[in-house]
């Protein structure tokens, strides 16, 4: 469960937000902060949930799902995002494949684990370098509106759009 200024963001709130945003196809690779969200998504009807072996596959799988008329999202850790720069540059941008990225933000304010703190220093720099627009979720009440707005922007811009979940359980 991600921590926020107003307290934890419950996994149910994130799943509700994804449904409000009309996301119907999800590819994921688990990390501690999103594991409860993924378990809930496994139980959701009306959402295809593909368990990835490597994050970069998710960009390809979601591109295919988009071509099949779906509204796709990738749920992953920020270390996974860092491993996927080439997918963004060589797949999503040249072909104009939009995708919503819901990324757990290890190393952001509130991080308690020295072993996962490092990617926090580069996550936003890399998103900026890739020209991916992003928002950091700060409280449960903004989860749905931010995901809806992100989904609108991804179709309007035909690019990946990111929403970051702060660390904590």
């Amino acid at each position, binding site marked *: 469960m991600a921590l926020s200024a107003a307290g934890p963001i419950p996994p149910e709130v994130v799943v509700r937000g994804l449904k409000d945003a009309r996301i119907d*196809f999800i590819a994921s690779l688990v990390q501690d902060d999103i594991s409860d969200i993924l378990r809930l998504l496994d139980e959701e009807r009306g959402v295809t949930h593909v*368990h990835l072996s490597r994050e970069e596959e998710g960009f390809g*799988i979601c591109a295919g799902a988009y*071509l*099949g008329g779906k509204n796709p999202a990738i749920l992953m850790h920020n270390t996974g995002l860092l491993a996927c720069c080439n997918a963004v540059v060589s797949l999503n941008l040249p*072909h*104009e494949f939009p995708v919503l990225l819901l990324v757990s933000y290890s190393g952001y304010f509130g991080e308690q684990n020295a072993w996962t703190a490092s990617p926090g220093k580069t996550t936003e720099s890399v998103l900026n370098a890739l020209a991916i627009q992003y928002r950091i979720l700060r409280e449960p009440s903004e989860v749905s509106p931010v995901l809806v707005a992100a989904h*609108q922007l991804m179709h309007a811009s035909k690019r990946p759009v990111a929403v970051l979940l702060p660390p904590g359980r």
Partner: protein
Amino acid sequence: MKRYDCLKIIVQHLTNDLIIANVGGPRREWRDLTSHPILPIAALGLCSSVGLGLALALPHRRVLVLDGDGSILLNLSHFATAGVHPAGNLIHIVFDNGHYESSGAYPTNTLSGKVVLAQVALACGIPRAVQVNTIEDFASAYEAALGGQGPVVIVAKVEVNPAFPKGVPDPQPSMDPIEYAIQFARHIEKTEGIRVRKAPRDVFPQLRW
């Protein structure tokens, strides 16, 4: 065996199949053979993943992936994902010429013979995966794949670069990645009656403009 001859067999059996290809040789040879829409994927390695996502999204529609050995070696984890999320409508053909054909024809790690891609696929839970070495065996394997349940992986051991040696120009008119993607998306929109390249209001009809 020549990849071009394998593609001829695939073209002979085309119906309304959706074709995702590796960038490079297959794209050029396909366009030399047919005007049937094809989507070459610019990111080396990811055509297999795009094909899986498309097959899962449109389970009633046959999806063919025309892949290469250098490409799938970059994305071997795809087999694990495709084995666990099986798409019955997915036929994945890997043209294994043992070389990075579009990158100076330098050898890949399949050239040694130690890496057997069909066995990797089988070990990852893909129910049907075969390696074929002759055009007759390719034709048999492909016809069996058309008549059966997927996912199927066919690894075709082909010669390196016989039809389009380095320096031969692209088919004309040349098309860039976005034109291929839009053409392919419009083809799916037309044949499926769905919206692919959506505006926000297509997803959220309550929005006012």
